[in-house]
């Protein structure tokens, strides 16, 4: 009886034995399936009928368990955000996939990320883009992410610790920009560093919950349009499904 109780407690608290490499692979595969299912369910809201093959491939390849604290590695492939210290989180995989797809990145593109965090989003971008430039405002996080990305062999990612407000002028202009750091407004210098035809994605909300995504597109004449995307299959009125 006591053993059953102990096992029940372990399962309830979400603890599990450390996964081996194969276990992680299987868990990642399952996570990608969940992400695809969520994308399908929200397609009429996000405007994304299905994730592009390059995004699916990146999500299936990048080892998320290497971007979360060791104590949480067993939870790394749950489709949920996780704390990474310093009051920051690694985003929910579904939201990461959606944001990456919205940027419509092609091989060879230059991408700027404001808010490196754990480096997971940068790694996903690096699997698709030509070069990724990522700025983190919190020094210890930025340094850890830089070491982690280098260790994992991402040669096409450059990181920097500092103020992201003025972007990365030496590497500008960019084909896509993602701003994952909370900001009260979109810094005008970032919009300047976006190429005509480029896309900027900004998640709005708090840690652990993304309320909506902003997709800012810069037209050839320099003007911008903005789409606001709910990452959930939800109609606010009853009887309208």
């Amino acid at each position: 009886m006591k053993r059953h109780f102990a096992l029940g407690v372990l399962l309830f608290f979400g603890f599990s034995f450390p996964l081996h490499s194969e276990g992680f692979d299987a868990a990642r595969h399952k996570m990608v399936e969940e992400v695809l299912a969520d994308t399908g369910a929200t397609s009429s809201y996000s405007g994304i009928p299905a994730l592009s093959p390059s995004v699916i491939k990146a999500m299936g390849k990048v080892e998320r368990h290497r971007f979360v604290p060791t104590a949480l590695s067993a939870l790394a492939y749950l489709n949920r955000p996780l704390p990474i210290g310093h009051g920051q989180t690694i985003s929910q995989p579904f939201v990461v996939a959606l944001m990456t797809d919205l940027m419509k990145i092609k091989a060879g593109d230059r991408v700027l990320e404001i808010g490196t965090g754990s480096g997971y989003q940068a790694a996903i971008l690096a699997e698709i883009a030509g070069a990724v430039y990522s700025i983190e405002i919190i020094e210890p996080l930025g340094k850890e992410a830089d070491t982690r990305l280098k260790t994992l062999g991402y040669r096409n990612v450059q990181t920097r610790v500092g103020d992201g407000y003025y972007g990365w002028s030496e590497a500008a202009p960019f084909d896509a920009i993602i701003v994952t750091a909370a900001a009260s407004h979109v810094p005008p210098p970032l919009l300047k560093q976006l190429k005509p035809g480029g896309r900027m994605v900004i998640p709005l909300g708090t840690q652990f919950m993304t309320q909506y995504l902003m997709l800012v597109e810069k037209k050839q004449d320099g003007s911008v349009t903005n789409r606001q995307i709910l990452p959930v299959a939800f109609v606010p009125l009853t009887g309208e499904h």
Partner: protein
Amino acid sequence: MSRPPFIAIGLLSACVLAYEVLLTRLFSIVLWHHFAYMIISAAMLGYGASGTALTLLKEKIASHFGAVYVMAAAALAVLMPASFLLAQQIPFNPLELLWDKTQPVKLLAVYLLMMLPFFCGGLGIGLVFSHFGKQAPRVYAFDILGAGAGSLGVIGVLFLVPPQQVLSVLAALTFAAAAIAVVELKLRPKWLMELFFGLAVLAAVALPGIPVQSSDYKDFSQAMNIAGARVIEERTSPLGQITVVENTRVPLRHAPGMSLNATSEPPPQLGVFVDGDGPSALTQFDGNLAPLAYLDQLTSALPYHILGSHEQHGPRVLVLGAGPGSDVLQALYHHSAAVDAVELDRNVTGLVRQRFRDYAGNLYSRPGVHVYELEARGFVNATDKRYDLIQVALLDSFGTASAGLYGLSENYLYTVEALQAYLGRLTPGGMLAVTRWLSLPPRDTLKLFATAVSALEQNGVANPATRLAMIRGWKTVTLLVKNSDFTASDIAATKEFCRARSFDLAWYPGMRADEANRFNILPQPYFFEGAVALLSPQRQDFTDQYKFYIEPATDNRPHFFRFFKWNAAAEIFSLREHGGMSLFDWSYPLLVATLVQAIAASVLLILAPLALSRCRRTLPAAPVALYFLAIGFAFMFMEIAFIQKFVLFLSHPLYAVAVVLCAFLVFASAGSWLAGHCQSARWQAANKVTFAVIAMGALALFYLAALPQLFHSLIHFPDTAKIIISAALIAPLAMCMGVPFPTGMMRLAGTAEEAIPWAWAINGFASVVGAVFATLLAIHLGFATVILLAVLIYGVACAALKSFA
């Protein structure tokens, strides 16, 4: 040992209540303020569980009454700082509550830890009741007199001392209460008294301030993580802990929802945090308006463009909730002729007026700018001035608003009555502007729109559609309510303002569907469709079918930020891991969870031990249980409803809690004293309670009818006068409410003395559940109904008493 330790019990009770109020402040800083409900519930649970312990251990304790009493007091003194310190070590994160299965367990651990000091306090007080049952009215009088003094006294202390240091003051006073008890009870050895006084001095002098660590996910903690951030000023008061953060390496740039077309940047700013939430910007200003151009790129700048199109002189502006001055700067940027800024917290205005006077360009003393350190509704009701524009500032942070953290709090700024009051202070052609954060799908903006429609209708406006305009940016929404119809030139100015800034029109009189949703494109033009529906005859159908609660907020149900609806809860809950977490207005479910937790913990800690113990064979009949259950529920219903009712009159929830709680307790103490002195045959127990309940019912009905008008006429009185008026209004009601508990106790003392701790436990249980349940009922049914229910329940208690008295 014939005399109860009156002074010690009064002081002990004062410390326990002061601790309860203090914890609501500390938890506001560490987490968020709605955890106050959890504290009240934990306190009552501790009291209830102490009654159970007394019932079970009565025989063993009886011969050591004095020693157990002083040990309980000493344990309370130790646990006050220790429990809080330990609770902070538990990595509870409310934002992960629905993601992480361990979080509810951590919440329960915090709850139980916070219960412990109250268990010791309750044990001490319950022990005295149990031991001196026949003197229950006098014990009760000292008990609640102390409680009243403690709840009010701590507010005064919090003006002078930071909350973390008040903890050591309370520990010292509680040790002093133990020492006084040694003297009052003539306990041996005598050195116990010296020991406890010594510990009191030690706690006061040597105990350092307990470190208060804000959640990593609060705005202040996030700001301090950034390299170069440093705190340059801290101020504390019961209204909140103000922290000013400077960062010269990565400057704060606060321009909420600035247009994507903007090219200007904010000038240097300081971040002002209240209880770790924010920031509001204290902007550097040298009199040159050019660097303030960014303020013209916010949705809140719209009314200046409309007024500017037909005003010869700059508008006269009233800013409600001025904070450190962004909206005042916006008014100056638009050449306003005069700006009246209303801000409740003197510590905030003090930053602009004194500490950062030069940095802020002497903003609050500039010609034409007048600052009023008052509550917004109070100012509006009292003033006879008229304004061209009333701006209700956006002071809550995007993070807390979007996380649904305000769902339980009353807000009298956004009610139908509030909007009517604002409209009454406008010049002909003047307008009210309210800016809110954008939430998707829309919640507060549609609720605000519905509230404005209702306010206009109640002002006799036949067609509210002609007096409303709403625009939205990518992050903020601004609603305009005009006191005359919008003119063609107003509409032209609105269109041009939005076009130049890529803001969207959400409503103006005569708006076509194809004009909506052009710049910040949503899957559907939610805001326009919502506005159209709320102005149509199908308004109620739309409100009913909408999955968020958007009925207009009123002074009777002022929970503006409650959007939760039960019929959408299952769907939203199922979507939480599929991108829908932000749809969840989780402060409301947290209240329900607290209720469930309180019931479960009460059953486990109060009722189960009683049921399993031998003493159930000696328990009196069910009417006794019903009586103490009913008076526990009814007292809490009445107290909580009146606290909420007086929030509007006394301007701030904390003042309302302190003044109303204190008045209730002090006058209930007087009522209890009187009940104890009416021992004649004519005043049988049942007669006393019946008289008290009838008087209470009559007073409650009178207040329900008369309070709104009374508040309206008296709200402009000075604070001191308002406190005296509040106490006078509560006095007769509270005196009646002080009768049932000691009368019931005395009845038991005469017939079934062993049942006293049991009754104390039952009453504790009812108070635990009653505190949370009253809030839940108020959200759904309004405060008036909660008061009526309290009277009804007192009636039930009356009937129950008759069957055992």
